[in-house]
């Protein structure tokens, strides 16, 4: 097991190298703007632009720039400085991480709770009224774009301009350490909006696998033992059906930790996702690299955690 994890971690390093290389190549093949011009301000003289270009190292070939970037990253864990405002990319990212982690973990709780509850109840009585309504609702939730859902939620429930003044609106996020109550209330809508699609997907996924599991021989054995229906479904059935849900949850959490761009934008939450959007708008390569690498790292680690969890979830799985 340890050997397996070590090998996977080494692969993670290779993967992150490839990801950053691709990001560099894309940036130079398809530049969104000239960072030096953006940095120079209004009506800059060509000399100023050229000077900034030298200052940022943009005058050298991209291969040399990439080598420098990698060198600093590997030797000093230095992600460079923003082209835009000279801020340290590393500190920018660490500053934004708490908001993204708050959003992602809260949403994970919401979507797992809702998805598992709906999936179990639907699977226990397929074709029932509840099942039909839940699965119809799930289809709507999967189809609805997150930014649209977010705007509708704000329109209905935001305390500034909403129809019903229920929850704090966009831009109300405060860090947990400043004001826990405000932190919680401001995140209720973003959590629900971000979780809605995932909850719908998980409800459908769990419903399908649980129906399949409940037809297995070992469920018949559980009934033959005289166990109560609740125990048969929630212990024997759910335990057998939960594996794909855990897999999906791990990977999806990794994706959301890399930045829920749409949700963060709609609710104006200062997280990694919005940092990435701003970086792209500013053609701020070091910041783009930083956010991309953080996102990739989360996804790769989430996959690794899921694979390790497998061995605990299914005693038949053994890594060597």
């Amino acid at each position, binding site marked *: 097991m340890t050997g397996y994890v070590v090998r996977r971690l080494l692969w993670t390093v290779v993967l992150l190298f490839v990801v950053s290389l691709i990001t560099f190549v894309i940036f130079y093949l398809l530049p969104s703007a000239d960072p030096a011009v953006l940095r120079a301000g209004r009506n800059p003289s060509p000399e100023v632009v050229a000077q900034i270009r030298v200052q940022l190292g943009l005058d050298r070939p991209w291969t040399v720039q990439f080598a420098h970037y990698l060198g600093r990253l590997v030797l000093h864990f230095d992600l460079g400085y923003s082209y835009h405002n000279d801020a340290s990319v590393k500190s920018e990212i660490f500053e934004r991480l708490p908001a993204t982690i708050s959003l992602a973990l809260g949403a994970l709780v919401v979507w797992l709770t809702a998805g598992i509850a709906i999936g179990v109840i639907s699977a226990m009585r397929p074709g029932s009224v509840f099942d039909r309504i839940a699965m119809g609702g799930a289809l709507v939730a999967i189809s609805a774009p997150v930014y649209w859902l977010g705007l509708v939620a704000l329109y209905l429930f935001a305390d500034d301009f909403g129809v019903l003044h229920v929850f704090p609106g966009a831009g109300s996020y405060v860090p947990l350490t400043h004001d826990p109550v405000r932190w919680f209330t401001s995140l209720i809508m973003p959590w629900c909006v971000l979780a809605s699609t995932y909850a719908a997907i998980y409800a459908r996924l769990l419903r399908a696998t649980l129906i399949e599991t409940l037809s297995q*021989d070992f469920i018949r*054995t559980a009934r033959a033992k*005289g166990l109560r229906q609740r125990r048969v479904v929630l212990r024997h059935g759910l335990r057998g059906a939960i594996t794909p849900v855990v897999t999906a949850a791990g990977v999806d959490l990794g994706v959301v930790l890399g930045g829920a761009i749409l949700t963060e934008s709609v609710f104006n939450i200062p997280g990694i996702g919005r940092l990435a959007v701003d970086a792209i708008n500013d053609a701020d390569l070091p910041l783009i690299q930083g956010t991309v690498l953080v996102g990739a790292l989360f996804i790769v680690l989430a996959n690794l955690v899921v694979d390790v969890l497998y061995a605990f979830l299914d005693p038949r799985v053994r890594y060597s």
Partner: protein
Amino acid sequence: MSVAETPLLAVRDLQVSFDTADGVVHAVDGVSFDVRAGRTLGIVGESGSGKTVSVLTIMGLTRAPHTRIAGSIRLAGRELATATQDELRRVRGDEVAMIFQDPLSSLHPYFKIADQLVEAVRAHRAVGRGEALRRALELLDLVGIPDARRRAAGYPHELSGGMRQRVMIAMALVNDPKLLIADEPTTALDVTVQAQILELLGRMQAERGMAIVIVSHDLGVVAGLAHDVAVMYAGQIVEQAPAATLFSAPEHPYTWGLLRSMPRLDRPREEDLVAIPGRPPSLIHRPGGCRFHPRCPYVREAHRRVQPELVADGDPQHLTACLLEGPQRRALWARLRAGDAPPPPTTGPPPTTAPPPTTGPPPRPSAPAEPPAAPPVPPPAEPSPAPPVPPPAEPSPGPPVPPPAEPSPGPPVPPPAEPSPGPPVPPPAEPEP
């Protein structure tokens, strides 16, 4: 059944049908049997004969929105067919326990063996985990699992097939059930392991005095364990008798087919095994009359219309649902035992005595009732000039027996060459719920 001895399990006119998209599947159709304490009933039949559905229904495990169950199932005087789900749940795993065909898929792959047994104990006994575990280990030890404590800490996939079935048996017996239902308990196991499991079941019964219902498609499995045997076909019992009687003097043509399709060490190796021609009928569109008539070599016209009843003919413990006369059946079996050629319902050697049918539609290969012109099987009691077979092993009834219901004028066996009026009952795959 004697009146003095009330059976532990009494099933009366059990009917189970499932509503499916293709129609109503009549899986069990009027099944009745008794099992007394300490006795073993074997239920045999092909796939789809309704044997598994019958025993699952005893456990209440076939109950579902699209299932209809009628009849009576009395366990120790208590009615189970109409019991509530919760009453049934209390009975399951406590008074009646069950083991299944494939022990690997029947054990939960993610739970440790000890946990699965402890759970079975605590579903019915208000005991702590330690006490339940002690009981579980005791049972694992009893069913012959070496180093039970270590095995119990493992998962089902870490055991061999035979050990898994022993675990299933231990789990079934952990609450001392009065009745153990074994549904094809050895089918998924190696032959040598099969014998061990059957021996274990017999030993457990001898030690605990419980009743066993064992379901199998394999007469050999049933022969080793059962005191009584019921043969099922298309949802009905077609023959029922004490095991010794059934194996020595079977009376139903279907039972003959089952016996002749079974390899035996006491028969010459050259002797061919005879498969029963055709397939089990659809349980949605069942054949009229005797359910077995499309596959029966001795079918007569009346058998397509009249449903036989399960009745005794002589021996009150030997029940047969066949429209052939008792003496005639016994003579036919005697001839089959003597190694007479198998009666071919569809094909056979070219006719030597009877002329081929000249009227009617040409013979269809699938038509079940083509005349098996040769060899002729005479009705037993007719004074045939030269009896070609040795006398039957069973003492044939002394007085001359009246000829079969249908007067056959000249040739001895005339299963009429009736072209079946309807379609010859295509048997689709049985839904085994």
